[in-house]
């Protein structure tokens, strides 16, 4: 058989892969595909340079070990799976930890202005869940800087020509075509359910169009907006993940939602104050006297309760986020010890995050980005006043289920296997926060930028391998497949435009988000979760009575929101039902009625599939196993977690070095250091 062209289909058109989402994961996927010679169509809700990755502040983890602490990828692996309470598959985590130093060097080569040491090397700082200096950073806007570096490389590919197998330029075809301000609506699937393209909507003209793609990768981020106000960008509605979930993709570990301990309350969003503030020495405290009326900076040392340091002497202010957030919440919500507001006569839901003991010059060099946010939005000088913060919804550990191929020789991942980052829908891949793979029950700080880039590094080569196994290009499939999908989405959209009920979707969103935020975040009780699920039923019923606020034919954000909100309700149900079912406490999922981790019954991933109740309400079907196909081969997937590298043990951060024994060797030095600075 003659080798088929990998560049052109039989009808002569260029074969392209579709990537949806232009944050770190999406852009890295695009770059890897281009390096493999595969042209890409890149779709994004917003110009990719404005993706939510810009919001990441503190840094990216890599055990480069330039501080002589004995850090290594092995320790990084151990601390990540321990931090994730043993719910993450360990082979992909190993792959990520091993790749991390190379990734940071690559970013440095791309021009990311990482902070340097006096010798001109990369500087590293501390983050939660570790005692090592493992986090490379560019001021306190590391996510922005990383995103720009990848954005620049992708822009370069926008100017490069597609070449055929003989190296002859194909006229008018560039390696990357961008479709910015386009909203993903659904997959185009062939008769076997394989993903062969997408339907998307131009958000300026509102035109709906189907696009063939040899394979599709979703890199569309998390669903934070389900909770209303969070640290997330307004675009993070999870709509794309919800759409493919309703088309048959498995959603895993949805109930694991990370609450970040330190955010600034605001009217439109809760702005993050990075964990790096604590990594650089920031201390969390409340006044000992719950009626303390002095301003934060005037409260003397002896009247302060440094409650994290007191309870967790081993890791102090740098315990993982689930633990820190819970402690802050308990302190304010249950003990009523939040910062006292003399005007309102109330203890506010706020604690102090204090950097004032650190020199202003150091703060400006390392943390200016976040302190500027505090200054601009709170109007107070954080260099000389302790900041007031409270936990906020931040990140989803759960997401689309994706596979990996384990490398038997060392327990890592087989590079370039078509199974890596593959969802259970053949031809559909997922990378970044939208996948569930790397963080288990709780993500460690500064591992998200890493997991996004690493997932893209796996997804690109996996798709390049996958498309070589295809007998037929999507370009050569019957055009009726695409016409049908396009027609379906046009009729869905027209139906939205005709909705003329009394309910307002933004109000419904507020109602649902309020309950999700109150009852489905830090502390979960089965009786209130039942009520949340009833509320979602009610919201889905009332949605039928929504009125569209705009019927315009241009940049219609009102109609677009209806679609996103409907999708948010299905994801909310996955999160709430998953939380209701899991009767244990693990990482970010905490039930006071089931205080301990229950490995016997729950050392497993939650696997959710979409179903319908039949009355416009969604339903979640949980399974323990399923079969799926990739590259014409069938695989059996189960909810069993890969724990082949680090054996599960109880998770305790009271003692230093609990997360990895390797860390304890340096403890004496650290103590001396601390005393010298005190």
């Amino acid at each position, binding site marked *: 058989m003659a080798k088929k062209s990998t560049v052109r289909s039989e009808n002569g058109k260029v074969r392209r892969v579709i990537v949806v989402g232009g944050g770190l994961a999406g852009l890295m996927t695009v770059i890897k595909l281009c390096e493999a010679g595969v042209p890409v169509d890149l779709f994004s809700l917003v110009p990719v340079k404005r993706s939510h990755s*810009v919001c990441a502040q503190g840094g990216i983890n890599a055990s480069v070990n330039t501080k002589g602490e004995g850090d290594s990828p092995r320790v990084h692996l151990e601390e990540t799976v321990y931090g994730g309470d043993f719910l993450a598959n360990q082979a992909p985590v190993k792959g990520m930890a091993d790749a991390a130093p190379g990734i940071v060097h690559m970013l440095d080569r791309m*021009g990311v202005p*990482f902070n340097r040491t006096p010798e001109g090397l990369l500087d590293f700082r501390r983050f939660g869940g570790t005692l090592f200096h493992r986090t490379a950073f560019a001021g306190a806007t590391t996510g922005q800087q990383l995103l720009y570096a990848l954005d620049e490389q992708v822009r*370069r590919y926008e*100017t490069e020509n597609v070449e055929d197998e003989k190296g002859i330029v194909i006229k008018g075809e560039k390696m990357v075509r961008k479709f910015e301000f386009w909203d993903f609506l659904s997959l185009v699937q062939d008769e076997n359910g394989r993903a062969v393209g997408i339907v998307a909507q131009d958000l300026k003209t509102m035109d709906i169009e189907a696009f063939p793609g040899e394979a599709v990768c979703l890199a569309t981020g998390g669903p934070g907006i389900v909770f209303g106000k969070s640290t997330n960008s307004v*675009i993070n509605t999870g709509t794309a993940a919800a759409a493919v979930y309703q088309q048959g993709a498995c959603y895993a570990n949805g109930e694991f939602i990370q609450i970040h301990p330190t955010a600034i309350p605001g*009217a439109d969003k809760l702005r993050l104050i990075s964990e790096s503030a604590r990594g650089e020495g920031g201390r969390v405290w409340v006044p000992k006297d719950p009626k303390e009326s002095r301003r934060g900076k005037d409260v003397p040392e002896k009247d302060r309760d440094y409650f994290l340091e007191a309870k967790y002497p081993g890791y102090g202010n740098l315990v993982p986020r689930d633990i820190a957030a819970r402690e802050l919440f308990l302190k304010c919500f249950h003990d009523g010890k939040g910062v006292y507001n003399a005007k309102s006569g109330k203890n506010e839901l706020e604690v102090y995050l204090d950097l004032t003991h650190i020199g202003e010059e150091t703060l400006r060099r390392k943390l200016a980005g976040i302190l500027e946010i505090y200054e601009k*939005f709170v109007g107070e000088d954080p260099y000389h006043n302790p900041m007031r913060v409270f936990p906020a919804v931040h990140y989803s550990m759960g997401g689309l289920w994706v596979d990996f191929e384990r490398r038997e020789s060392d327990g890592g991942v087989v590079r370039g296997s078509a199974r890596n980052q593959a969802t259970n829908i053949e031809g559909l891949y997922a990378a970044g926060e939208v996948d569930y793979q790397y963080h288990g029950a709780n993500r460690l700080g500064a591992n998200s930028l890493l997991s996004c880039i690493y997932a893209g590094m796996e997804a690109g080569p996996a798709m390049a391998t996958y498309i070589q196994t295809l007998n037929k290009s999507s370009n050569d499939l019957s055009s009726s497949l695409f016409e049908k999908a396009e027609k379906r989405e046009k009729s869905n959209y027209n139906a939205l435009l005709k909705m003329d009920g009394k309910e307002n979707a933004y109000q419904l969103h507020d109602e649902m988000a309020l309950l999700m935020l109150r009852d489905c975040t830090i502390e979960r009780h089965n009786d209130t979760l039942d009520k949340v699920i009833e509320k979602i039923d009610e919201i889905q019923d009332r949605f039928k009575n929504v009125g569209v606020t705009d019927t315009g034919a241009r940049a219609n*954000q009102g109609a677009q929101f209806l679609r996103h909100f409907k999708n948010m309700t299905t994801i909310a149900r996955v999160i709430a039902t998953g939380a209701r079912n899991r009767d244990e406490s693990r990482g970010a999922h905490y039930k006071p009625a089931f205080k301990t981790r229950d490995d016997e019954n729950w050392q497993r991933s939650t696997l959710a599939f979409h179903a319908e109740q039949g009355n416009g309400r969604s339903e979640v079907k949980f399974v323990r196993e399923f079969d799926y196909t990739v590259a014409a081969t069938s695989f059996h997937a189960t909810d069993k977690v890969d724990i082949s590298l680090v054996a599960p043990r109880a998770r305790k951060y009271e003692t230093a070095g609990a997360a990895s024994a390797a860390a304890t060797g340096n403890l004496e030095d650290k103590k001396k250091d601390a005393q010298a600075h005190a």
Partner: protein
Amino acid sequence: MGSKTVRLKVLRQDHPSKPETKRWEEFDVPWEPQMNVISALMAVRKNPVTVEGKKTTPVVWESVCLEEVCGACTMIVNGRVRQSCTALIDQISPNGEEVTLEPMTKFPLVRDLVVDRQQMFDNLKTVKAWIQLDGTHELGPAPRQAPENQEEAYPLSRCMTCGCCMEACPQINEGSDFIGPAAISQVRLFNLHPSGKMHAAERLEAVMGEGGVADCGKAQNCVEVCPKEIPLVDSIAQVSRAATKHMLFGWLLK
């Protein structure tokens, strides 16, 4: 108590090809603590009724991160171009003054407060604002860099392509094709990097012709409006000097 409101006056237009729909609309929304222009627009969206009691469509605007790192939400607030997320109502309307919102004027209008800034992204292609990377495979550490180099590069690298400098620049108008301060500053950024330097000449040549760095009229408005306080005037001066040097002596190095 509780009845305090904020008045927004918004310049709207349904479609670039429908100038007849251009109009001002006014809205009263309930005041909230820590309110900004975005949360005020969100309140309008929940109840799109003008002060005259006329039902209208929700105002269309662009926003993403709401913490001034994405660059999306640029508009003209009370006559001044800026990010609307950091436009706190208590600061811009301390005594309940009306808040006016208009779209930027130097870019094609999409609808209401949304404009199309594609030109700025295209400018980044023109100046080759990237490192010519051999590949993303492992090639060991990057060249070392002095902390001073990083400290010069980092502020330049925070440019969000938000368009404030373009809007404020008098040289950017229908009669000129000046590339603008943002892209010129990127030339300086990439020419600072140890491997970016290797292609410095190409970037300089990209801003040496018509519409290039010489078209700057030195009004210095750009640096006044930049939300990230990027030293754009310094960048223009440096790139201008480097370009002149390259023009005079570049051929000697070839």
